[in-house]
């Protein structure tokens, strides 16, 4: 099985995630799309790790999973806090921190 197939699939998944971030307005779905992109990166890491016969890439993928978990926890915390304060959950309206 050629490693290029995995890399092209990873690029396709990453592009799907980028499209989702650009397209959707709900912060929850945007977090899901960030997950898509991180997992596409993980797939590329594992593909390179296999093609080089080196396990370091797999450790890196594991650390990426930890980072993704942290990002999810903080992002969902912000979403719940915004919902409790009756702030509309729409990224176009969440502009308080901007400029």
């Amino acid at each position, binding site marked *: 099985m050629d490693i290029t197939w*995995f890399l092209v699939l990873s690029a396709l998944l990453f592009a799907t995630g980028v*499209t989702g971030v650009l397209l959707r307005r709900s912060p929850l779905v945007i977090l899901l799309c960030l997950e898509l992109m991180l997992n596409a990166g993980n797939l590329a890491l594992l*593909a390179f790790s296999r093609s080089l016969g080196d*396990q370091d890439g797999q450790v890196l993928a594991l650390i990426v999973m930890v980072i993704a978990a942290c990002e999810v926890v903080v992002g969902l915390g912000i979403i719940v806090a915004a919902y409790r304060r009756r702030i509309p959950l729409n990224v176009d309206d969440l502009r308080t921190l901007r400029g």
Partner: protein
Amino acid sequence: MKEVAFFIGAIGALGGAIAVIALRNAFYSVLALIVHLISLAGLFLLLQGEFIAAAQIVVYAGAVMVLYVFVAAYVGNVDEPLWEPIPGQRFVAPLIGLALFVELAIAIVGSSLSSIESEGPTVELGFGSPSAIGKLLLERFLIAFEAASLLLLVAAVGAVVLAGRHRGGAEETTT
């Protein structure tokens, strides 16, 4: 045989990813992401990342997605308004995604990656097994491991502070 497994996994992963961004209901998007993650775990197995595949299912499709399901059920469905702050965003966004994919695909196919051994070398037994990964994590990557654990602790404390209920009564009204 490997090709069949790859294409089944690829169809599952890609279908899940497209369903995540296409479904209107956020709850269904979360469920589609679970399908995506499990298919991806199958692909990781094909790349001999046994431990990563197991962690993907247990940590990601299990624990993290449960968190998502709870928050999606708590917040409920968010209505996405039809007006667009950027005109034509609905049509431009997929075009940008497509352009990114074409660019990445040219970079992958056009590079000299195919000149190295495309199948990858034959690896010894136990490549990507929990014992091998654990040994690497606790010996060579010990600092990264400790930093990750510290980061998880900080994130957990931050989430509690962010989402915790304010009991003082004086809730600041930020709109």
